């Protein structure tokens, strides 16, 4: 596959450390590489041209930081510019001054609107709101069933109407949501092509009826060059406020996100990273910038690690570890350090040589999030003195974290193992972080590929996604 961008830049600029300034010709060579990398990431051609021109200007004559090679310096500049561009604008959802806050989702067919509607409802419910869902996709077969099943799963009411008129469905749905005092209403609409005049007209009418506080364009991260035209037309017709970027759990570089941001100025608000309903996250521009660039290099690992792990936090932990203590508080802070470095898969990919080995390895971020939820459901005493966690406490913790007692047990067992490990390790090094314990989290395939044990496999596929 492709070499990483920084490898190629190294080729273009030479790997000599600390060679003063970035010169014209070297920059031109580097910019060609960047252009190619962005095109391979599906950033729109015109956006690429503009962006490269802008970066070029900034890079010209820039001083190379002492510890970096010119290639790395260029990566740094590009990454910074990209992050700034992606990060402009608020990623917060607007709240209506008098409830309900209405959120309208729109986009192409199959982009992930219905799933995103349910996920958003869950996210908002977990933030203490009372969401409701309105089914206004009357086009796709069984679309309403789909939303209803998802609504049931998360215990959020779904308002449906027996009509073929989405405007009527929205009117009725909003009425019922108001009557039931829902403070957020999410409207799921049918997918449509931006060049389908009647359906775009219909969407306009739905928007006028719904008077949404937020209109969100749901965009598939795998979208190619057309993303620009899609976004521009949706922008003209329904003036969306932000983007939900979906299917980011795959390996798409997601350049479409940059294209859409560049041509509409609208921020990415949320990213969807899986099919499970808790897999919706707020947007992090720096992670997205790294992803689009495909920067697999140590430089950024070091930078990220430095930024993430605050010295004293680390020292305090090491101190306790040396004494062979490993409480759930340590567990939590270790996990958070890890998480702050970015999506786990991304971080591990940064380690040279590991990227290719990671192919086919599942790193289940949701599982990590579950671990965090479990620890957060413990009392401070329980975190410090895990042995007090008896049967009834376990049940309470499971309920509070939305997990099962079994999962809680598993975590308790992991901590024990970890503590044992710490004791054996005695003085010195940073220990294995929780993500690497067997919580069903990262797992390298065995030497002969499919040799993961049968029973384990069964469990995994049951707890699928």
């Amino acid at each position, binding site marked *: 596959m492709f070499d990483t961008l920084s490898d190629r830049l190294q080729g273009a600029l030479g790997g000599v450390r600390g060679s003063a300034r970035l010169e014209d010709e070297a920059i031109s060579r580097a910019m060609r590489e960047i252009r*190619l990398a962005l*095109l*391979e*990431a*599906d950033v*729109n*051609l015109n956006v690429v041209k503009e962006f490269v021109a802008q970066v070029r200007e900034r890079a010209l004559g820039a001083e190379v930081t002492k510890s970096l090679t010119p290639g790395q310096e260029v990566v740094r500049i590009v990454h910074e510019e990209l992050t700034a561009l992606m990060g402009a604008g608020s990623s917060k959802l607007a709240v209506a001054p008098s409830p309900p806050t209405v959120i309208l989702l729109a986009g*192409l*067919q*199959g*982009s*992930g609107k219905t799933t995103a509607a349910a996920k958003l409802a869950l996210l908002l419910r977990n933030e203490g709101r009372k969401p409701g869902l309105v089914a206004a996709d009357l*086009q*796709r*077969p*069984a*679309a309403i*069933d*789909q*939303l*209803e*099943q*998802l609504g049931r*799963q998360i215990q959020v009411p779904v308002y449906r109407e027996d009509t073929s008129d989405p405007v009527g469905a929205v009117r009725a749905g909003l009425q019922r949501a108001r009557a039931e005092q829902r403070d957020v209403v999410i409207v799921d609409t049918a997918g449509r*092509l*931006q*060049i*389908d*005049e*009647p359906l775009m007209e219909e969407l306009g009418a739905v928007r006028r009826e719904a008077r949404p506080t937020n209109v969100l364009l749901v965009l*598939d991260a*795998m*979208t*190619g*060059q*057309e993303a620009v*035209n*899609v976004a521009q037309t949706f922008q003209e017709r329904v003036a969306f406020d932000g983007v939900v970027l979906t*299917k980011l*759990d*795959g*390996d*798409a*570089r997601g*350049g*479409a996100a940059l294209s859409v941001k560049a041509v509409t100025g609208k921020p990415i608000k949320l990213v969807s990273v899986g*099919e499970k309903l808790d897999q919706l996250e707020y947007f992090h521009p720096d992670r997205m910038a790294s992803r689009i660039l495909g920067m697999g290099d140590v430089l950024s690992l070091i930078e990220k690690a430095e930024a993430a792990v605050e010295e004293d936090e680390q020292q305090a932990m090491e101190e306790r570890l040396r004494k062979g203590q490993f409480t759930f508080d340590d567990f939590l802070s270790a996990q958070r350090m890890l998480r702050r470095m970015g999506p786990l898969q991304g971080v591990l990919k940064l380690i040279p040589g590991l990227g290719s080995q990671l192919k*086919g*390895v*599942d790193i289940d971020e949701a599982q990590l999030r579950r671990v965090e939820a479990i620890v957060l459901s413990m009392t401070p005493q329980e975190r410090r003195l895990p042995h007090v966690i008896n049967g009834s406490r376990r049940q309470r913790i499971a309920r509070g974290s939305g997990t099962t007692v079994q999962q809680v047990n598993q975590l308790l067992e992991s901590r024990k193992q970890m503590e044992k490990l710490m004791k054996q390790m005695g003085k010195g090094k940073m220990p294995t972080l929780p993500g690497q314990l067997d919580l069903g989290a990262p797992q390298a*395939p065995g030497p002969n590929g*499919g040799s993961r044990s049968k029973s384990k*496999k069964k469990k*995994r*596929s049951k707890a*699928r*996604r």
Partner: protein
Amino acid sequence: MTRTWSELLGDADGRRETEDEQRGFFGRLRDSLTKSRRALTGELAAAAFDPADDAAWERLEEALIGADVGVRATAELVRRLEARGVAGDLAGPLAEEIADLLGEPATLGVAARPSVILVVGVNGTGKTTTIGKLAQKLRQHDRSVLLAAADTFRAAAEEQLEIWARRADADFVGSERGADPAAVAYDALERAAAGAHDVVIVDTAGRLHTQANLMDELAKVRRVIAGKLDGAPHETLLVVDATTGQNGLQQARLFGDAVGVTGVALTKLDGSAKGGIAVAIAYELGLPMKLVGVGEALDDLRPFHAPDFARALVAG
């Protein structure tokens, strides 16, 4: 001229095509007034291509990249056009070269009775819809069809396929949500073994090609089908959304590794995306394109015809 269903299905003297079918998707697209596809050639001023002008070559490259053809297939096309010594008219030679990269006309493996078609792809590309449309075409060409709902994951996936089965006048094997998809496929083959069905089409849950456990699950579905019936699955169709960018290549590669894809259905070509990723997939992986989806209605499926597709890509 376009490719007929009888040709695609390998029926020597099959049913005559309707006029609408004969016009093919290219004609339909051209007719449709709401479409705002911008022609590549418009962007290129192809009528007066000057090979001595570097900027003209650059515009060509950019137009191809802008159509999602990708960097490598674009380079190959440029190389071929250079070798041909194009001058003046670019549109004709370009369409020819694109068609050439797309390869020979393919057929759909439905000769065996029963034949099994396994349909796979990432989430939301149009698998279930394509199956519904294909079932109707097969019915029109005198096949009895059984649809199997082996997407046991997505909410209401079963209900959706059942509605399509009714529309297409096909039989249907259902499933419980959360059931083992391989077991559903097995049930369907069991039912077809009674001899009443010519073609079994197995719908599967969308999955990203990077999800190892889900790809394993899919490989198991395939193994169960192969174990149950010699020579099955006769087709493993990968459904690719025409709006997809360069990730489409990776999809084709990894689904190919996991379940041995035999052909591609390119959907949503009624949109403004030009579907250039098909060229990249055909060129880099040699996978044949077999079907194109051009809308959400029952009739909106066409046999893939490379010259048509290439002309539509170049001329809008």
